[in-house]
């Protein structure tokens, strides 16, 4: 079994008004060293795959089919082998 930790974020060219709103809030709270905030999405997906390659292919497929809007978003992921 593999645990996939999948991070989805806006492409650099896409505005992130949620991140901007969080940045403004932090600056209002006095965190003046905070320079920028980007808000994205995080998924944990357990996958019953026999190999890391197979798990990796499944992650790429589910990202393409559902988790990521490729028009606006990109993604990266990490795989960890976990006990069944």
């Amino acid at each position, binding site marked *: 079994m593999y645990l996939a930790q999948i991070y989805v974020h806006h492409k650099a060219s896409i*505005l992130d*008004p*949620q991140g901007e709103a969080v940045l403004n809030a932090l600056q209002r709270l006095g965190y003046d060293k905070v320079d920028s905030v980007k808000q994205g999405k995080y998924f944990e997906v357990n996958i019953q795959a026999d190999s890391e390659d197979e798990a990796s292919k499944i992650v790429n497929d589910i990202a393409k089919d559902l988790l990521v*809007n490729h028009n*606006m978003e990109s993604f990266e992921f990490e795989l960890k082998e976990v006990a069944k």
Partner: protein
Amino acid sequence: MKFAVISFPGSNCDMDMYYAVRDSLNEDVDLVTSDATNLDGYDGVLIPGGFSYGDYLRSGAVARFAPVMESVKEMAAEGKPVLGVCNGFQILTEANLLPGSLQHNTSMEFISDWSKLRVQNNDTMFTDQYEESEVIDIPIAHGEGNYYCDDETLAQLKANDQIVFTYEDNPNGSCDNIAGVVNEQGNVLGMMPHPERAVESILGGTDGLKLFKSLLNHVRS
């Protein structure tokens, strides 16, 4: 003529759309649930606004997998009219029936207001009752109506006259002021503003009526 209005879990403008067709257009219309697997017998399909599936993941991302969407895709492929308004527009982009995506409004505010739109293309089955470049008043109500597409897609939209409506006073940050686009074949229209909320003077305006009348004329001819 018979139209289908699709009700997804979380649709909340389905009755507005239904009444617009039934009472203002005086045509047959059914509310069809998103579990339906067949749209045979309908001349056109209308996908209403709301928050289908709670807008989980992304607006429209889950609705795209509802059983009825296979039939919607078939109707689109057959050249029958498909109109998506607000969340309906978001669903059509997620389903790849229309190019581009809808992002959060740049203001981060949910905007509920009247908006002035310019009819950029009145040579479509949805807009031929409007004058060329006519400016119309149609309500908007959305938090994620900021239309985005890449430069290449934008160039294609322009080259094919697919930009049907633009905002006169861009409320949400949409690229090139885009409020509504059609597919290349011209039979699938998505728009954030709500024409079904502007079909009786008691609602504050009737500028949406010509869209439904255009559609009806097309289906009849």
